[in-house]
């Protein structure tokens, strides 16, 4: 299945890119397992990383489906100073 992945803010900087497109097998995979593949299991996903599928917040143990847009981002700090 094809998964599009997006990174934002400090995560975008540490990944060195804002987006990935992944071709993965058809075995079930969760958002946090996707993180492991993307980082080569160098580090477990930090607790404060937020995750979304198709622009809706999801828990890291949610399974991804073919065609999903998965996003990883640091804690949000919007609004005003």
């Amino acid at each position, binding site marked *: 299945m094809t998964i599009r992945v997006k990174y934002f803010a400090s995560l975008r900087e540490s990944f060195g890119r804002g987006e990935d497109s992944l071709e993965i097998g058809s075995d079930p995979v969760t958002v946090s397992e996707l993180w492991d593949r993307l980082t080569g299991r160098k580090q477990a996903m930090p607790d404060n990383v937020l995750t979304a599928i198709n*622009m809706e917040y999801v828990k890291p143990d949610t399974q991804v489906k073919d065609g999903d847009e998965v996003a990883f981002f640091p804690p949000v700090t919007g*609004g005003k100073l």
Partner: protein
Amino acid sequence: MKVEIKTAKFDPWQEIKSYQEQMQKEGLFGAMASFVGSMRDFNDGDKVTAMELEHYPGMTEKHLEGICKEAGNKWELVDVLVLHRVGKIKVGDPIVLVCVWSAHRAAAFDACRFIMEDLKSKAPFWKQETLEQGKRWVEKNTQG
């Protein structure tokens, strides 16, 4: 209801005025509560000279529209306007505008604050501050 991400500086008063005129709901609302967040020149004790705000195009708008709809379910509202800047921001520039119209004042006050709190804690925006020593990503929100 209108939610918009602004990539250039905006005038919150002109925006409210124009939006209210096109609403054509004069006489229906007795109350309007608004909040404008603008860029301060200090944060966490440091002097901040500039700021850059990043968002998740698509998700940010969807999330903000969801917050406004939730407020509309909780309170009886006449209309809601939410504007939010992204990109390079200068000291004093408006960053966010939340404006709520309702028949009575309690709903306007409560909904305006509810939207602001949700916006601060959950909407996908990230800010990077430029200090005299360099840039830093802000990792936590200021309280209240």
